[in-house]
């Protein structure tokens, strides 16, 4: 329940910030959304303690074990998220350099 509301909260904050006119806020919103989505995928695999690592001498995972598939998906998602955030940073920087601000609606009018 707590986890669910936490993820929901992350989504709310993320979406709200994404809707701001300020590019920086929108970027932070995107990062929060990234967290939320990662957690959502992770949680959908079920929660359990332990690690998806096969013990020495065994042939397969011993139940109960955490689902390894969402973990693999989320791992790539995190790294991609890094790439996206770095790109956003560069973009914000460049926008500020050229247009001197980060208000998207202003940018639109300057087209």
């Amino acid at each position, binding site marked *: 329940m707590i986890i669910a509301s936490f993820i929901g909260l992350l989504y709310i904050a993320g979406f709200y910030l994404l809707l701001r006119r300020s590019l920086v806020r929108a970027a932070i919103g995107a990062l929060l959304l990234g967290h939320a989505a990662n957690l959502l995928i992770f949680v959908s695999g079920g929660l359990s303690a332990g*690690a998806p690592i096969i013990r020495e001498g065994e042939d397969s995972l011993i139940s109960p074990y955490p689902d390894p598939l969402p973990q693999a998906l989320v791992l790539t998602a995190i790294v991609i998220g*890094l790439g996206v955030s770095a790109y956003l940073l560069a973009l914000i920087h460049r926008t500020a350099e050229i247009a001197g601000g980060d208000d998207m609606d202003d940018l639109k009018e300057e087209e």
Partner: protein
Amino acid sequence: MKFRTSCYSLSGASAVLCIFAIWASMNLDAPYYLAFDWLPKVGLRISFRVDSFSLFFVTLICGIGSLVFFFCAGYLPGDKSRSRTLSILLLFTLSMLGLVLSDNVLLLFIFWEFTTITSFFLVGAKCEKKEAREAALQALLVTVAGGMALLVAILLLFMAAGTLELSSLEANRQLIQDSPLYPVILILIAAGAFTKSAQFPFHFWLPGAMTAPSPVSAFLHSATMVKAGIYLLARFHPILGETVLWHDLLIGIGAATMIVGASLALARTDIKALLAYTTVSALGMLTFLLGLGTTLAMKAALVFLLVHACYKAALFMVAGSIEKLAGTRDLDRLHSLGKMSPALWCAAALPALSMCGLPPMLGFIGKELIYEAKLIAPTIDELFLLIGFTANALTVTAALLAAVKPFIPRTMDSPPKRKLTLPLLAPPIILGIVSLACGLFPTWVGDNLLEPSFQALKGEPSQIKLKLWHGVNPVFILSVLTLVTGALIYWIHSYFARMVSVVERWSSPFAPERLYAQLVKRFVQFASLQTRLAQNGSLNFYLTVTLCFASLLLAAAFFSLPEKAVDLSLLIHLKTSLIILGAAAAAVLSIRAQSMLEAVLLLGVVGLGVTLFFVFYGAPDLALTQFLVELLLLVLIASIWSRLPAFRPDTPKREKRRDLFAACILGVFLSYFVLQAVFLNEHNAISEFYAQNAATEAFGRNVVNVILVDFRALDTMGEITVLAIAMMGIMSLLKTRKTKR
């Protein structure tokens, strides 16, 4: 020189193919099939059927094609886009051959569309001119609309008969004609054929397409592409034909096209436009004959196909040569060309004789057969006979206008003689000689080319011998009358033309080309209106719409999913709850963050919370990755800290509240979704497989990493490629020079 060489070699190749087709047609006993599977699931096979009817068309295409390529060598040099035109012409020839040879209807459709597309480029060859582009677009839109109708018809046919092979469709004839879909299929197929073959009321694209270079007109708009519709109707005659609907539809449209085309032709002063309208009329005649569907009518249609291809292609080429010679195609300004180039007059006169239907040309035989077919047809009204007669007479006038008027002198001064190059003269003369030879030896042509193709089409011999001289009978008298009337109209043609243009002006609000223009205009208006509504350029607007829609979807899922027992006590330890609460608080605060520092710090807290979450729920790999990513991101942000824009006061309150509301709705739904997801925690089969086989097959005990680098390595590869691309993007963003506006 190189260009000419390629023209000559193409011409030679087509000529060889043409001769081969004639030879094959003479020696072919049964159809020859060739098939490969392509997409068996949708019934698409690459299947070809070579029978005599196809071969007849191959002969036409290759024969005319050979001469057209030859003509290109004289006409196209000096044109900037000549190589492009020639290669597209070759592509067109190939698709046309594919069209007449394919057995699978879907394959036929694909070739059909190929001819449409290539013809678009050919009509628009002089793309620097606005009217050429517009004409090309018009031809494309009209024929593509017909093509769509054809596609629907094909799908319906498949529903009705369960097969797409022409050969087996013929066997299922009864099944198709009894099906309730039959009228729809017939009308749609007819729509496809009518647009392609420029039947009324779709005829207007053909005269428009006269902006194409003359060789293209000679090829596409007389002998081949416009005949594709006729080919389609002829092919479907054994399948769909001989019903009342078929009969009425084709005869009605055919007759209307005949008379409209022939009368409009006389009001034109551009030779090519005049020829185009007579082509429309001739195509109407062919449709009419196919609509009659009697043995005699079908045979007459075949003969007329050959006749028309020969004379019309020749006259189009002559029009091109005239343009080269005199620099204009305007009939009012052309005169005395006969003195300038007697050879050209000869080249124009032979096909024109065939067009008028004078003995001993093949055109005479064709016209006799047509009249005979009309006279003895059981179900035909006198009205149609009259229409046919008028159209024929007007065609005679048009022939005289094209082949006599520009050549006779109107003033006394005699212009200097000019020589035309061989490629500009030879092809029309050859075609004229072919018409003459066929007229002199009709039996040979009839027995070796026309009769086999008739048999292939109808499955039975026609018992009709082609003869030049039938004796004096009603048919002959009609022929003579036609000629005399035609000549009389030529005498008074300027009055007639004025009359036609008056009628045309009076009816112009209802003209099909007007309707077409209106339709296109309205469509463009609608498109721009819709674009203005849907794409107003505000990111906020787009996102809000997307969010609302996502909420709707989730709400739908919310109410349709079965309720699950939710166990609230699951796995919540005190320390995890504390971490989560901390991170949640950070997330909430980040909404209200007023400075960059604040925002980044809060973001860090959230990231840390997520990391610890991973630690407690059995994902050490994730925790490590998340931690390092947070670290790196922090470094990156710190490194361009002073370059980031300052935080500024945000948007008005009302807007904020609206956005918050939208975000909240979606967030609540998503929370519920998560709750459902957590309790779905049976491991699925895929995870099970990975868990079982990681150690034994991939020799790794860290299942997550094994999935990453072995089981799903292709995904990982895609991902690292994305990273590399992102890196390239960032580098180019940051390393470009500062450009202040």
